């Protein structure tokens, strides 16, 4: 709903909520005008209609007018009608005198009938107004609850509530959330205040008295001062306070509106409750997933650590016991084997630790500005010996923007992708590393000319403990790509596997970049050269 359209319907709604509020005097004038009009219309037909029908006309006018007028005006109309009938029609005409006492009785009956009908009409109308007010109130609440339903976090819910309250009550409002200790902090949408769909601020933040707000939290009951303080009740404690300050100079809100505000507050409380429940469920799901991860990990580790351990222990015992009288060659072989197996185990261990750390979200990213070619060079240097038998080609344009990333993680992503390429492609084939800037993303890809991706959904490669070939001598437990994905996602990026055009596999890392920053530095460079 557009805010302006909504506003006018709300104005009507607020009028309907308290019909007695509108000014009375025009209605009395209208009542007298109705009498005059009726008299003027009927008078020419006095003779043809006859006295009784004229009286009926007056009663009819009074009944119809009662649909629109207030009670006082309706009574005035009935009395004015009777007097006009008496003055203009009851013989003798143009006098309040009455010739016959039967006419007196007639005037009395006419007044009573008109009053009864008018009264009935008024109460019918009151019921209709109440019903439509209820309907509108439901509509307003529904509009807010619909906004609350799509909001996913406490801040956007608070913003939605503030937006609705501001629009409905022509006031400023703020939601204060209480933390575990009961301290209150205002919830602010990005940009400092609640905004509507087009990002225009709906209303500025009201002044509020933190002491009163705190009092409301402690007592869990609403407080009406210069502003309205409503508690947001949770199941166990007060979760926050809505402060609503009516626009300057406005009348204090009538009780119907206060009830509506209460309903708004209750609605918001419920939604916040929903967020908390959802968060608890998410936490439980994560915990369950972690247990599952641990179990898989244990099962996997017990195999993948025991095998190299057996090799190490065996080789060690062969070397240490002199009576095997090993030749120089064999001792070297065993020594190399021990070293290689120990390194594999160390790699496995750091992979597991790395992934666990990322999945638990331990600590903030250690991000800084980096040049992608620098990170590629580091990954190549780290895997120099491993890559010696492959032909690595680079395609890194000179004008690539800097990226704001945790270098260790990016180097690890690239390293894992390179390591995979050496594991799954035959030596002597090509590995291609390329980077390109695309709008607000940086795409870095590692492609090979090997046998390509295994059949099936490439996304499955990124699952934990998933390996390209299930039973093979290739070392590792299938954490490499899972780590790549977790690390990329920590940066708001993604890693995807695809088939390389011309054969082979291609892994593409996309990372967000911030381009304007680079341009500033390049300008800076130019000025320093001329200096």
């Amino acid at each position, binding site marked *: 709903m557009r805010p302006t359209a909504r506003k006018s319907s709300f104005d009507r709604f607020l009028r309907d909520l308290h019909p007695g509020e509108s000014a009375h005097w025009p209605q009395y004038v209208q009542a007298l005008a109705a009498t005059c009009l009726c008299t003027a219309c009927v008078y020419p037909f006095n003779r043809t209609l006859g006295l009784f029908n004229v009286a009926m006309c007056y009663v009819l006018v009074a009944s119809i007018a009662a649909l629109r007028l207030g009670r006082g005006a309706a009574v005035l109309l009935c009395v004015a009608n009777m007097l006009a009938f008496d003055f203009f029609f009851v013989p003798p005409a143009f006098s309040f005198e009455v010739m016959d006492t039967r006419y007196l009785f007639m005037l009395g009956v006419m007044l009573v009938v008109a009053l009864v009908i008018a009264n009935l009409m008024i109460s019918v109308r009151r019921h209709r107004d109440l019903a439509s007010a209820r309907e509108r109130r439901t509509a307003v609440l529904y509009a807010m609850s619909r906004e609350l339903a799509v909001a996913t976090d406490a801040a956007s819910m608070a913003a939605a509530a503030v937006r609705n309250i501001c629009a409905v009550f022509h006031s400023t409002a703020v939601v204060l959330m209480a933390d575990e200790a009961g301290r209150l902090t205002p919830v602010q949408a990005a940009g400092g205040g609640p905004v509507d769909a087009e990002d225009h601020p709906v209303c500025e933040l009201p002044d509020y008295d933190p002491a009163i707000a705190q009092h409301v939290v402690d007592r869990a009951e609403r407080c009406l001062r210069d502003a309205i303080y409503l508690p947001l009740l949770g199941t166990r404690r007060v979760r926050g306070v809505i402060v609503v300050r009516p626009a300057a100079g406005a009348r204090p809100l009538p009780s119907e509106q206060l009830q509506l505000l209460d309903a708004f507050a209750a609605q918001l409380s419920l939604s916040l409750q929903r967020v908390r429940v959802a968060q608890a469920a998410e936490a439980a799901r994560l915990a369950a997933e972690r247990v599952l991860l641990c179990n898989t990990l244990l099962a996997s580790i017990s195999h993948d650590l025991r095998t190299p351990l057996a090799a190490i222990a065996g080789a060690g015992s062969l070397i240490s016991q002199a009576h095997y009288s090993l030749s120089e060659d064999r001792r070297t072989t065993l020594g190399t084997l021990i*070293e290689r197996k*120990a*390194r594999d185990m*160390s790699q496995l261990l*750091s992979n597991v630790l790395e992934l666990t750390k990322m999945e638990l979200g331990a600590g903030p990213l*250690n991000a*800084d*500005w*980096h*040049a992608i*070619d*620098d990170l*590629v*060079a*580091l990954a*190549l*240097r780290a895997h120099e010996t491993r890559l010696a038998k492959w032909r690595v080609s*680079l395609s*890194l344009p*000179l004008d690539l923007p*800097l990226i704001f990333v945790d*270098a*260790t993680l990016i*180097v690890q992503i690239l390293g894992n992708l390179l390591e995979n390429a050496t594991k799954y492609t035959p030596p002597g084939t090509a590995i291609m590393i390329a980077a390109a800037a695309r709008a607000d993303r940086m795409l870095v890809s590692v492609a090979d000319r090997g046998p390509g991706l295994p059949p099936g959904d490439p996304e499955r490669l990124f699952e934990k403990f998933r390996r390209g070939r299930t039973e093979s001598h290739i070392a590792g437990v299938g954490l490499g790509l899972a780590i790549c994905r977790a690390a990329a996602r920590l940066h708001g990026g993604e890693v995807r596997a695809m088939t390389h055009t011309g054969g082979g596999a291609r892994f593409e890392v996309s990372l967000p970049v911030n381009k304007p*920053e*680079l341009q500033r*530095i*390049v300008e*800076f*460079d130019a000025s*320093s*050269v001329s*200096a």
Partner: protein
Amino acid sequence: MTDAMHAILIVEDDPAIQNVLRILFEANGLRVVVAETARRGEHSAKLNRPDIVVIDLGLPDGDGLQVISAIRAWSSVPIIIVSARTAEAQRLAAFENGADDYVLKPFSAPELLARVRAMIRRHARADRPKGVLQLGEVLVDMTLRVARNRDGREVRFTPLEYRILESLLRHGDRIMTHAALINEVWGPTRDDTRALRVYIGSLRRKLEGDPSRPRHILTELGIGYRLVIDGEGPSGPALQTA
């Protein structure tokens, strides 16, 4: 290098690693002194005056960083850290405390030995390289501020590039942290690395044979940069006549 046996102080509490290091260094002609605790390490450094210290960060009676600061208070002996601590912040703290190099456990024996030897050699060479340096394809004369490549064409540096190169050179081939480098080149007010990254990139394009695989200006992840000098090139006049 002198003929006298160089002494190496190993501060490490794990007997297995102690053994491996002792065998490694003794087999390669170094005199090995071992200390198991931080306190004994400090004491032994004063007593034995080693030519190089290899130290673990996690020690039973304290942190290796304390030992480094204590030794740095009176000596410029090269210090290499051998530790299982991988976090960048911890490595950075080690360099800021005065460590010269950092080797991660599990280490490769040949690599550690190479680093120890390089460090001893560098320390023995009292004077820092001055005059003409060979950096890959380029000969740089730091006194005349001229650089020429193999064909004799002049390589031009912007003033800031030159200042970065000078700062790196002053540190020999020791790692220079981002903060120290930015402080020397731009002054203490600047604190972001973006300009530094851009200039290092352009320096590499001028100096390195293959800028995408640098051999001279090396990045130490999360710590800083290290300049590797091939050696001191031919004397000044050769450069000028080229």
